[in-house]
């Protein structure tokens, strides 16, 4: 006990003004708390970057090795759906950013509206993704589940895609590697969709709390940090769209 007094002479006074209820005991100020939470969120996003980094590495390696297979595989993706989804996600990012602004300027109804819109757009994105996945399942383009090479060995058997791109048939050994393309497609978009689902779940929870006014009384950290997460998902998709859908459309 004595030693702890050593600093008494030159120590800062303990924080004493009345604390807002959300200030946790081990922080000295709300700024410190918000700073720490924001920084932690950024570090978490770094881990996410590296997590997807492994997938991007795999993608780059195999795309270089099996370019024709990747082109044919990518022609199987519907660019209209993909573009729509990109727009939807960008729009949801925008509504999320607006939600952050509403929270910062303490507009409760605006915040609820923005979060609800983001929630809705997130569902739209997943809905479209489901449609796309269903198409792949119907064509047996899901690796590991009776994967079919039909569309690549005989492109004319797949008239919708054929009339647009007039792909030449791939030779069997190259056609086999479209399975790798679809593996990566499902891995990357699936991992992305998983992040979306988690995000939408949190959004639902946030809407309830926002209606009670939890984020519009000066403690908007949670909304800001969730915003970072949501925008990060958007960024991942921006790259996925460029890499998976737009390999070679000409």
């Amino acid at each position, binding site marked *: 006990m004595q030693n702890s007094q050593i600093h008494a002479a030159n120590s800062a006074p303990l924080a004493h003004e009345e604390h*807002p209820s959300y200030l946790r005991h081990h922080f000295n100020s*709300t*700024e410190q708390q*918000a700073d720490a939470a*924001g*920084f932690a969120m*950024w*570090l978490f*996003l*770094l881990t996410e*970057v*590296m997590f997807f*980094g*492994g997938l*991007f*590495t795999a993608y*780059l*390696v195999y795309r*270089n090795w099996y370019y024709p297979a990747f082109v044919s595989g990518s022609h199987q993706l519907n*660019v209209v759906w993909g*573009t729509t989804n*990109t*727009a939807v996600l*960008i*729009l949801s*990012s*925008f509504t*999320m*950013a*607006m939600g952050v*602004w509403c929270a*910062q*300027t*303490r507009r409760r109804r605006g915040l609820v509206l923005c979060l609800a819109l983001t929630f809705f757009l997130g569902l739209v994105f997943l809905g479209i993704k489901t449609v796309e996945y269903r198409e792949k399942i119907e064509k047996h383009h899901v690796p590991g589940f009776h994967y079919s090479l039909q569309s690549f060995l005989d492109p004319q058997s797949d008239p919708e895609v054929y009339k647009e791109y007039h792909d030449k048939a791939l030779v069997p050994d190259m056609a086999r590697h479209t399975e790798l393309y679809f593996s990566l497609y499902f891995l990357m978009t699936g991992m992305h969709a998983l992040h979306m689902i988690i995000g939408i779940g949190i959004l639902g929870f946030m809407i309830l709390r926002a209606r009670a006014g939890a984020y519009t009384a*000066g403690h908007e950290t949670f909304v800001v940090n969730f*915003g*970072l997460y949501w*925008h*990060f998902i*958007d*960024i991942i998709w*921006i*790259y996925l*769209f*460029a*890499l998976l*859908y*737009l*390999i*070679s*459309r*000409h």
Partner: protein
Amino acid sequence: MSEANEHARHIVGPGVYVVILLALLVGTALTVWASYVDLGFWNPIIALAIATGKAMLVVLFFMHVWYSTKLTKLTVVAGVFTFMILISMTLTDYISRAWGSW
């Protein structure tokens, strides 16, 4: 308290967000259009460049990095840097494997 907060933290207004939204939508249209033009070697590079541009807009404005502390900027750079190490150092192996044994 709230005023102090607003001074400490730059609040980005709807105006900026709308501009960025439009820029992102234009970028999306541009990248789709570019993929239908045969630019050979440049196709993937342009696609990635546009994607990176869009990502930068999101990071800088939607995620407020433009207005943030040096620490946040450094964090973002560190993430990109490590990501690039993973990709580039792995590719040193894959690219040079094609060069044969020596």
